[in-house]
């Protein structure tokens, strides 16, 4: 079958029984616009270049495959953090479980309320950053999210947020198919830390649009939960203005399929954009994909991509990362590293690092490696009395350390390190 036909069929099947949620004001138009993009692009298939390493079929079928709910015996994440907790259960906002949607320095509203307000700041971001991010690479699943998102919140950060905001995504229903869309606007000089945690749903489509104005600071720490059968397609589209900072870190445990796309556009001079992630997967039914696209369109900016994957028992990891330096984006400092630690011969890491540079005064580097545990180091540790498993876990943690170092807040980094240690001790 021709690719175009296959995409049309895939799209038709997905949309057959779909209705665009109707609200009022500008929301309807934004959704209709996005749906037109979906139809025009056609949904992704395994034969698309950008989906070469990850089969999107289970993300595009009409009926989400079920996923057993995992009973974790760990304490919920970020419990000790003084935060604004915003809870979604299988993709539906839960007011009772959530804190008051307020904190100093931020304005928080539910997406539906924002969409129903005639004149609203979110109108200039919702679906707008997503649309910008469709060039040069099409991301139809992101447009589908914009069209169909059933819930979400919009956050305007007007000053230094007094505490982090935590989206908590709970998964209770084996067949849930959740589509969430969140929007964050960091005003000039304002700052926010956004935390996200939890497995969310059997199938989860989540999109985050972040607009960081001049001198703004946005820190993002996310942990994707331990449910083994869950699937997720997430997108983060960010526009990063002059002298601002954007830092995002994602830790992923388990999951039959996770694709995290991060599309960053640096539009103002002297800005900093870091995106990092670590994932731990055990078994053939683990597939994790980080797809990153960083565009430099300003002078003297720094971007970093740091991705580490620990894979065992036939797990698969994918990294597709690109740095695009546009004409005139001089003094760009771009760095990209993707590495996998393969704990056995069955596991695999597929990487496609790319640089595309149209400016002459830039320093960009990228590297990708795949390797086993360093046997010499392992013996050294054991010769000092450290038992085999402990030694291996220590080396595994050290492998991940560079990514974990990207987390700005050391308490958060420590909490994540504890979770990592927990995972490693359960899987050794």
């Amino acid at each position: 079958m021709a690719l175009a036909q296959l995409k049309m069929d895939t799209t038709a099947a997905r949309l057959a029984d779909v209705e665009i949620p109707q609200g009022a004001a500008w929301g309807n138009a934004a959704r209709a616009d996005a749906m037109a993009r979906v139809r025009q692009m056609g949904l992704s298939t395994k034969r698309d270049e950008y989906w070469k390493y990850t089969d999107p079929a289970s993300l595009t079928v009409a009926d989400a495959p079920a996923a057993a709910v995992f009973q974790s015996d760990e304490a919920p994440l970020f419990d000790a953090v003084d935060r604004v907790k915003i809870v979604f259960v299988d993709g539906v906002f839960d007011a009772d479980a959530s804190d008051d949607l307020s904190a100093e320095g931020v304005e928080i509203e539910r997406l539906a309320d924002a969409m129903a307000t005639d004149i609203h700041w979110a109108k200039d971001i919702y679906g707008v950053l997503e649309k910008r991010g469709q060039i040069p690479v099409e991301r139809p699943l992101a447009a589908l999210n914009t069209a169909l998102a059933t819930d979400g919140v919009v956050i305007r950060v007007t000053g230094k947020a007094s505490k982090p905001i935590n989206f908590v995504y709970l998964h209770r229903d084996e067949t849930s198919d959740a589509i969430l869309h969140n929007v964050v606007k960091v005003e000039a000089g304002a700052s926010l830390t956004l935390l996200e945690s939890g497995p969310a749903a059997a199938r989860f489509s989540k999109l985050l649009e972040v607009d960081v104005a001049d001198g703004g600071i946005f820190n993002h720490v996310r942990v994707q939960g331990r449910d083994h059968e869950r699937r997720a397609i997430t997108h983060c589209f960010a526009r990063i203005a002059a002298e601002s900072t954007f830092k995002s870190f994602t830790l992923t445990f388990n999951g039959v399929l996770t694709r995290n796309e991060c599309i960053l556009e640096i539009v103002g001079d002297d800005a900093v954009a870091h995106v990092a992630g670590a994932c731990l997967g055990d078994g053939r039914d683990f597939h994790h994909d980080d797809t990153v696209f960083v565009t430099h369109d300003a002078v003297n900016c720094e971007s970093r991509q740091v991705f580490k994957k620990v894979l065992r028992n036939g797990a698969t990891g994918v990294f597709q990362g690109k740095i695009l330096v546009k004409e005139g984006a001089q003094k760009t400092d771009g760095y990209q590293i993707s590495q996998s630690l393969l704990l056995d011969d069955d596991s695999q890491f597929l990487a496609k690092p790319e640089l595309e540079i149209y400016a002459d005064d830039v320093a960009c580097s990228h590297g990708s490696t795949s390797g086993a545990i360093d046997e010499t180091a392992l013996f050294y540790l054991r010769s000092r009395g450290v038992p085999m498993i402990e030694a291996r876990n220590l080396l595994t943690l050290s492998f991940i350390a560079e990514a974990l170092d990207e987390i700005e807040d050391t308490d958060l980094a420590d909490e994540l390190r504890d979770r990592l240690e927990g995972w490693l001790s359960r899987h050794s």
Partner: protein
Amino acid sequence: MLEIKGLKVKLEEEDKQILKGVDLTIEPGTVHAIMGPNGSGKSTLSYVLSGKDGYEVTDGSAALEGEDLLDMEPEERAAAGLFLAFQYPVEIPGVGNMTFLRTAVNAQRKARGQEELSAGDFLKEVREKAKSLKIDAEMLKRPVNVGFSGGEKKRNEILQMAMLEPKMCILDETDSGLDVDAMKLVSEGVNALRSEGRSFLVITHYQRLLDHIKPDVVHIMADGRIIKSGGPELALEVENNGYADILAEVA
């Protein structure tokens, strides 16, 4: 303390015999030195004793205080009291020197049924011992051996030894790469550890180290065997005349 009998070792991957029957008995509280030409099998002996992969013992035995070493995992040998200061200490990026030391000390204590050292006690002990070896706090914070100079790595080996307090210490060319002052520091570190219940096997090419760490017995190893043993004067003979005479004598 250590009793090696007729130890024969070949490489696992190739048909290459490296140790061709090593006999060596080290009494508690004594210091033995091994000298010998490059490639004679000195490091191999130390690796086989500490349990490194890649070697196959085809014959013979090695026991630490009567316990069969060759049957144990490397970490069990360490817990039993064996320590090897590596000829080439290993760099471990991402693992802090402190974390490494503490993990090692506590793992050994645990294996021996002792309580783990508290963070405070541990820190105090490391600081003290590091100071006497002129290892500064900055070095302790860095990843294990990463960016350490050759001499710093060797001093770090001795620090580990001092922290772990093993019974049987094997030092593989700990003197190589050390300047004169560092050699003195390291020797003092070793001498401070000398006691009735602790033995040393010092592998070296040079008499100089043995000026500081006085051996009770000196062995000459050649082509996978100990071909001659004697007192400290044997080391002097090597220093002055090389190995030619000794090799000729046994041939």
